[in-house]
């Protein structure tokens, strides 16, 4: 079984998690930039974080034979802090990097006008850089948040089929699916979705354009939720091919829209010697 977790915050996870994930079949992850729990107070703090998502974290992942890509953005919550907003001016030089496979996560937190501005600006950045966008839906006032999110996408230069709308649930899946966007579901131990409801949604709406993630971070979450959903799908009569589609081919197709997804992991040892400049020839 090959699994892809399309939304997980590995910066907040331990090496034990990496080991358990690889053992469970997770071979690729995408780490969206997000809020760290503790508010940032300057753009420099974002830049160090972005650098880590392009440096240290992929190195950690490669040690466990897991391909690591990221999505970069100013997150919705901190879009409301004027001290953080100038990071938008730095984003363009980051969005050209090889491992950046989308702009994200963007969207709404409290649905303020500052969030409107940051969302619109970053949807434009995605269009300018040939990147899709990972847009989350707010935890509070979700259905209204989804509608406002879809409106913002429709007003942007980014086509709906280059947008993954995340943290969906029973109340938002239908309108999201009707819009033509990609459909993301975060499976959590207590909040958001659980495995059983996820499988019910797959049965009701089908696997097309559906991505399932653990959204594991520093909160109560489980980095093996993609595997648990896969196991329950099989137990409930879905085929191996259905599982492969939802938990591998769909995320590969969505992030592949960037043209930058590279699922071949180079083990760190392969780059230790200077003559590795010429590796790949044999």
């Amino acid at each position, binding site marked *: 079984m090959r699994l892809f977790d399309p939304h997980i915050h590995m910066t907040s996870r331990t090496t034990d998690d990496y080991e358990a994930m690889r053992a469970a079949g997770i071979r690729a992850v995408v780490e969206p930039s997000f809020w760290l729990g503790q508010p940032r107070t300057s753009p420099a703090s974002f830049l160090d974080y972005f650098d880590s998502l392009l440096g240290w974290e992929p190195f950690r992942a490669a040690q466990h034979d897991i391909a690591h890509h990221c999505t970069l953005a100013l997150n919705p919550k901190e879009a409301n802090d004027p001290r953080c907003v100038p990071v938008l001016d730095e984003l363009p030089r980051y969005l050209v990097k090889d491992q950046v496979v989308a702009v994200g996560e963007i969207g709404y937190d409290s649905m303020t006008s500052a969030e409107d501005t940051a969302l619109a600006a970053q949807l434009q950045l995605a269009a300018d850089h040939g990147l899709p966008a990972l847009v989350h839906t707010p935890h509070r006032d979700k259905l209204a948040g989804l509608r406002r999110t879809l409106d913002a996408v429709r007003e942007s230069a980014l086509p709906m089929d280059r947008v993954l709308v995340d943290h969906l649930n029973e109340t938002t899946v239908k309108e999201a699916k009707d819009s033509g966007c990609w459909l993301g579901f975060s499976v959590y131990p207590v909040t958001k979705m659980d495995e059983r409801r996820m499988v019910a949604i797959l049965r009701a709406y089908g696997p097309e354009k559906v991505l399932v993630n653990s959204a594991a971070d520093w909160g109560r979450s489980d980095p093996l939720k993609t595997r648990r959903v896969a196991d329950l799908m099989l137990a409930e009569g879905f085929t191996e091919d259905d599982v492969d589609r939802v938990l591998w081919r769909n995320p590969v197709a969505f992030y592949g829209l960037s043209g930058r997804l590279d699922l071949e992991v180079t083990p*760190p040892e392969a780059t230790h010697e200077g003559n590795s400049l010429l590796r790949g020839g044999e």
Partner: protein
Amino acid sequence: MTHSPATGTGPEFTPDVLRDHLDSHLHPAARAWLRQALDEATANSGSGWELRVAEAGRRCGSRHADAARVLILYAAHADPATLARLYHQGSAAERRAVLCALPHLVPGPDAIPLVEDALRTNDTRLLAAALGPYAARHLDAHSWRHAVLKCLFTGVPVDAVAGLAARGRGDAELARMLADYAAERTAADRPVPADLYRVLDLAAEDFEADHPHGKES
């Protein structure tokens, strides 16, 4: 201890070697992209070519990205200030390429701060790239010894250290550090890396001759 300016014995790739390699390994589309990127870098008007350094991975494939990036840096004759900017604004892969390009592009010690930055990381790919012929030539003795020790700590094979024999031979201080590290491992009932004895033999060479009773083990 003094050391004569060591010529690095590690691989120092010339533009010809890299270009021949990429010519024979890249797919036609990637080869065409690289040719254009090299033209842009050679012209070196504005900073557009710097974007080619960033996107080399997805254009040439990750296996050939290092070589392509180094070649682009060569073509631009990137100066130390440009290399420093590209390093500090680069992903880990781009930083590695800047480090690999140093011996060919920077004759003096100006770029040593980049090497020191990479040596502070725990990313073994950066450590290995930092310890090429440029570091062999310009890194001060204290930093160089600690870098060798860090290789042993982090599992970077010492073969990655350019000029190891030339710089390490007869380095009594390095020999002491290695012997202490071996003692620490032994006391903890942990294996001593085989590489350690290789370097220790080298570092202890003249030391033993000068101090016949100086080495305890």
